[in-house]
């Protein structure tokens, strides 16, 4: 099984470019998170990858036949006159891979819908429909699963179950998932792509992304911290240092690697009692905002400069 790749993938609707020159690299068997604000082009990208839309330019290499690519839309819907069991039966039958009843029951059980197997889906809640969407996607044993906000309609427990379900697919299925909950992405994804205004502004491992953006360090020592502050501010890899409150230093570094190597020595040299040392603003959410806000800032600047 090869990974999924796109090369200069673009999609325009008239004058509007929904997706611009996207080069996705999704390793086989990996869980890839595609994140971005609303309207950034995630769903369009997913629908291109699912073969539901034609690219204006660029190519897609699925790495597997297209009938082994499953797509779970953000708000799945099914024929309301079918039961949950019949939806799975139809989902596998239409793929030409009919499954025995036992497998269908197991799959429904897997997503917590075993008790509703014989109920028509017209009466299902949004959460139940989302679970059924995941089950309908997995019943055909796809090699690539594209899931757009799979846990969006679920309660916290259901959300965790679905995210865990996706995490268990690692190595056997290539999963491309989008989520507004960046903690989920941080927890299960091997690599991540950040999309803003139809462009991929970052692609790589989650760890690299965190390391890249975590250039602000927080050091908590027993006051006074003046000596340590002076030592740090003299270091060549430091851009700025400020004392937020007595004993709390916020250090903006230009090279995170150098900081990791030398900070402990500086603290020891200052003879100051260390209480806590770590990154400030090290969550994926902060980096996400930083990356996507940059995009918005550029857009505003661009518009401001445009002749009207």
């Amino acid at each position, binding site marked *: 099984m090869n990974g999924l790749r796109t090369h200069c993938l673009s999609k325009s609707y008239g004058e509007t470019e929904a997706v611009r020159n996207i080069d996705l690299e999704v390793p086989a068997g990996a869980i890839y998170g595609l994140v971005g604000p609303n309207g950034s082009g995630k769903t369009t990208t997913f*629908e291109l990858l*699912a*073969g*539901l*839309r*034609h690219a204006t330019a660029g190519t897609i290499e699925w790495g597997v036949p*297209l*009938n082994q*690519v*499953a*797509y779970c*839309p953000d*708000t*799945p*819907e*099914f*024929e309301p*006159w*079918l039961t949950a069991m*019949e939806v799975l*039966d*139809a*989902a*596998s*039958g*239409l*793929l030409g891979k*009919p499954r025995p009843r036992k497998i269908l029951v197991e799959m429904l059980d897997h997503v917590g819908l075993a008790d509703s197997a014989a109920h028509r889906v017209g009466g299902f809640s949004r959460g139940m429909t989302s679970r059924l969407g995941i089950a*309908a996607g997995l019943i*055909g044993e796809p090699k690539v699963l594209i899931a757009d906000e799979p846990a969006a309609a679920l309660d916290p427990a259901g959300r965790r179950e679905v995210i865990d379900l996706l995490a268990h697919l690692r190595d056997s299925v290539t999963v491309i998932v989008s989520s507004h909950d960046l903690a989920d992405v941080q927890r299960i994804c091997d690599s991540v792509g950040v999309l803003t205004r139809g462009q991929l502004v970052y692609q790589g491992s989650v760890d690299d992304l965190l390391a890249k953006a975590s250039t602000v360090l927080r050091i908590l020592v027993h006051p006074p911290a003046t000596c340590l502050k002076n030592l740090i501010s003299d270091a060549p890899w430091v851009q700025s240092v400020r004392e937020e409150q007595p004993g709390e230093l916020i250090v903006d570094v230009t090279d995170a690697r150098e900081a990791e190597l030398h900070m402990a020595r500086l603290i020891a040299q200052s003879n100051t009692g260390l209480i806590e040392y770590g990154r400030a603003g090290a969550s994926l959410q902060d980096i996400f905002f930083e990356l996507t806000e940059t995009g918005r800032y550029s857009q505003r600047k661009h518009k401001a400069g445009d002749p009207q």
Partner: protein
Amino acid sequence: MSPWRLELLRIMRTRRLIALVAMFVILGVGGPVLVHYLPQIIKSKTATSDIKLILPKPKPFDGIQNFANNISSLCTLVVAIVAAASLAIDANPVIAIFYRTRVRKPAPLLVPRFVAVIGASVVALALGTLGAWYETTVLIGSLSFGPLVVGFLLEALWLFFVVSTVAFFSSVIRSVLGVVGATVTLFLALALLESVPGVMSWMPTRLAESEADLIGHPAGVLWHAIVTAGIASLLVFGIAIYLFGRREVSR
């Protein structure tokens, strides 16, 4: 579950089969009854006035003609609505995603729906025709069965043309209402064209009242319409499959 079973469930559980059968049977049975009792109804309404009405005694042809008239109007409309509801796959784009990501080629997706609608419509037509034949025979007089069967087959061809036309409009228009509107507009235009000499005999719309035409007129005059309807049906359904395959899901 095969696509064929899925379509069988669709036509049964959405009550589309019931709607079709009810419409054809009510009009099939009701038409000859109305024709039979109409003179009496009119006479009873005008009994107190000075006007004396002399109405011809209904003939068996009148009973079947009433049903045939309804096939060309009301029944055609109901078939078009049922067909549009089944064939306008992209009317609900999220449900369309379910189908389109599982059946990648358009023909295997469209053909079972097409056949299910045609099948249900022809079953309803057969039951309506049987009802009309029975009531006409019982109330008015005997009908020759041979021309009626041939007429039934030609009306089935008319329904095939109707459903093919709906399939075509479903491949260019997404909403069910839009598809029905376009189909009805086209049939009205075709009905208007029927008044043009030379064109009339070639119009597929001529088949809509075949049962009455074959009982009331010598056989053979409908050959032009049969050829046009057959070729046009296959052609527009083929175009529908092609266009459906090229269309993107839009939401």
